[in-house]
């Protein structure tokens, strides 16, 4: 039992030990005596009103009568109390029966609740099992996919390296080709240059020849001569 609950129970017990129990008996006796006193007072007043003043013999018979009436009243009072107690006990019995019925209804309600909870629990358990199975399957799939991904990544690295090599080779080839084209172009240019000079030379020679034949102003060609431009 919780500490706070034990404390409450103990303190309530202690409270009654201090406040109720020492006075309970005393106050009950006081109340009973008070009742008795009231009864006697009532009877005394009644007898005072009804009885005339008489001799000792009359007084004696009156006292006896009074005693009997007192006993009768006390008996009546006791009977009233007992009948009250019986009625209290009967109503208490009815209440207990009602309480019992209520308890039965509560038990059946809780039983139903327990059954439905058990059903829910079993369905949840089966769902849990299903989920566990799915989880296991998916984790297997995940690990297979991870392995596949790893292999693909390795392949990708290889392909990448191969591509780099090919690119390097292609660039080398292109560079060589460019050099070849440049050389060819240089040769072409030189060839073209020589062709031009030769053409010019041949043209100037043929002109000088034709001029010497016609006696016109001419320029004598020597081996050391450079080609010159002739002016008309």
């Amino acid at each position, binding site marked *: 039992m919780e*500490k*706070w*609950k034990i404390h*409450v129970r103990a303190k309530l017990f202690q409270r009654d030990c201090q406040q*109720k129990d020492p006075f309970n008996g005393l106050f009950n006796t006081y109340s009973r005596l008070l009742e008795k006193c009231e009864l006697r007072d009532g009877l005394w007043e009644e007898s005072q009103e009804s009885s005339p003043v008489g001799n000792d013999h009359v007084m004696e018979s009156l006292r006896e009568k009074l005693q009997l009436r007192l006993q009768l009243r006390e008996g009546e009072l006791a009977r009233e109390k007992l009948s009250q107690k019986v009625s*209290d006990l009967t109503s*208490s019995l009815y*209440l207990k029966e009602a*309480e019992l019925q209520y308890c039965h209804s509560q038990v059946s309600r809780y039983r139903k609740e327990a059954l439905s909870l058990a059903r829910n629990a079993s369905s949840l358990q089966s769902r849990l099992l299903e989920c566990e199975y799915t989880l296991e399957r998916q984790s297997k799939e995940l690990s297979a996919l991870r392995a596949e991904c790893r292999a693909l990544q390795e392949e990708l690295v290889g392909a990448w390296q191969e591509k780099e090599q090919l690119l390097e080779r292609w660039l080398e080839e292109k560079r060589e080709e460019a050099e070849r084209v440049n050389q060819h172009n240089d040769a072409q240019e030189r060839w073209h240059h020589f062709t031009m000079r030769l053409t010019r030379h041949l043209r100037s020679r043929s002109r000088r020849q034709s001029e010497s034949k016609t006696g016109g102003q001419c320029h004598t060609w020597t081996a050391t001569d450079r080609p010159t431009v002739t002016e008309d």
Partner: protein
Amino acid sequence: MADDKDVLRDVWFGRIPTCFTLYQDEITEREAEPFYLLLPRVSYLTLVTDKVKKHFHKVMRQDDVEEMWFEYEGTPLKWHYPIGVLFDLHASNTALPWSITVHFKDFPERDLLHCPSNSVIEAHFMSCIKEADALKHKGQVVNEMQKKDHKQLWMGLQNDKFDQFWAMNRKLMEYPTEEGGFRYIPFRIYQTMSDRPFIQKLFRPVSPDGHAHTLGDLLKEMFPAAIPQDDEQKKYQVIIHGIEPMLETPIQWLSEHLSHPDNFLHISIIPAPSD
């Protein structure tokens, strides 16, 4: 709950030995003897003092008799507070029997409500029950009850019948298991050192994160001075039904077991005795 039913019984059958004395200035035909009575803590003064009235009427002139009222050491006692609350608040650390002075004149209109008959007490009691149920179940339980069920609650209190009362009151103490308690806890905090009659606010039995609130949590929010700080001497006593429960006690359990028949948890805060 089997063990806890004993707590309900102890609460219901709590008694205070009381000595009623007629006020010295009241005019009597002969000397008035004091009257002794064991008062039920959960009942109301005017409901259980018919015998007191009858006892003192015998020695008084009928012309001098007006409405009866009670006083303790100069403080008029409010009949609409439960007897146990009045005792805890005004006389818990005094010698027993509790000495109450009875008056038949000079009714203190400013301090007390009139109580011409038991039907006034019944109306007050039922209105408290309805208010408490409005806090606990939005008033649904008490509204679903029939007139005879209301009567059973009242008759149970009036005739001091524990079983009769609890057969019906049990319904007012139920709550859905999944909610962990009532909607709000019906409580009232009384202080002797304040002019305010009592503190009453909304307070849930369970915190938003699902923790059960305790008596300490309630006091921390409503009356923080009642909780002693570290190394500090206790300044106040927190009393319910004449006992000081631990501050760790869940407020829901207290509401279910230590509430008065009006379904309110009446908490008295008094200065701690200096010795």
